[in-house]
């Protein structure tokens, strides 16, 4: 079952901003001239950049949208009544397989599919529900560039520090 199909244009400015956010000053992520002299021959994206495809998902639930209530604080501690169904999920695992680096100018087709779902009891957070997602990133020729597998966990209650 396909959950979502997205188009992910990979842009130099986005890569630069992402590299800044992870504190990585490697010129291969922002300096075209220096990157041209390096082994990879031009600017590439850092290994975890594929996750930024969220920017290109029009329905991404963790981005505020005009005219829609947002569950974060404003006049009140939350902009909606009650706990939003999706807000409590935490990232448990992330796995990437790389066939080649992402480069500015790539226009990737990204397909997101659900994987397995399972439950586990935990001392620190009650019942845990795990949900897996498989994300495939392909270039214009249909070649697989990156495969990502993520596992999100929804705890019954906030995770205590252990």
């Amino acid at each position, binding site marked *: 079952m396909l959950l979502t199909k997205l188009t992910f244009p990979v842009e130099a400015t986005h890569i630069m901003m992402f590299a800044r*956010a992870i504190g990585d000053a*490697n010129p291969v992520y922002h300096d075209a001239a220096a990157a041209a002299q390096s082994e990879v021959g031009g600017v590439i994206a850092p*290994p975890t950049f594929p*996750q930024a495809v969220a920017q290109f998902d029009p329905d991404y639930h*963790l981005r505020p949208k005009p005219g829609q209530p947002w569950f974060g604080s404003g006049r009140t501690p939350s902009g909606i009544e009650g706990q939003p169904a999706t807000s*409590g999920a*935490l990232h448990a695992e992330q796995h990437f397989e790389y066939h*080649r680096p992402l480069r500015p100018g790539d226009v990737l087709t990204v397909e997101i599919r659900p994987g397995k779902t399972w439950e586990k009891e935990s001392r620190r957070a009650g019942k845990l529900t795990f949900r897996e997602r498989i994300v495939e990133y392909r270039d214009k020729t249909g070649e697989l560039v990156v495969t990502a597998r993520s596992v999100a966990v929804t705890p019954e209650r906030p995770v205590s520090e252990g």
Partner: protein
Amino acid sequence: MALKASTLKVGDTHVERVVDNLSRTQIVQYAGASGDYNPLHTDEVYTTQVAGYRSVFAHGMLTMGLTGKVLTNYVGAGRLNRFGVRFTNQVWPGDTLDATATVAAIREEDGKLFADLTVSTVNQDGKEVMSGTATARIDP
């Protein structure tokens, strides 16, 4: 600089401090770049008063991104074939993180050389916040 199989040994390590005194602003910066605006990472009021945590905390993917820098600095940009992690503890504003990559195996597959690495990121109390594995293409 790529790693060379001729000089690399199982057990070799590379350690770097990947962030010192993590700021809320850097977490916000990561939210903006990645597109993940979950208030648990950026909104102290929501996170403490509604979600029940003591403070906002970093995206797992920020910790993975910070740690990825240690790998690419060690094996060379564009050399990773695989990078996978488990997030084991939360990362809070003010945390200082050190990441270690350790060579677990050096192997040849279809005439190409690879290093398998384990990765561990710990906070200022020595508590592991993320652990994982990676594979990099290396030179002869």
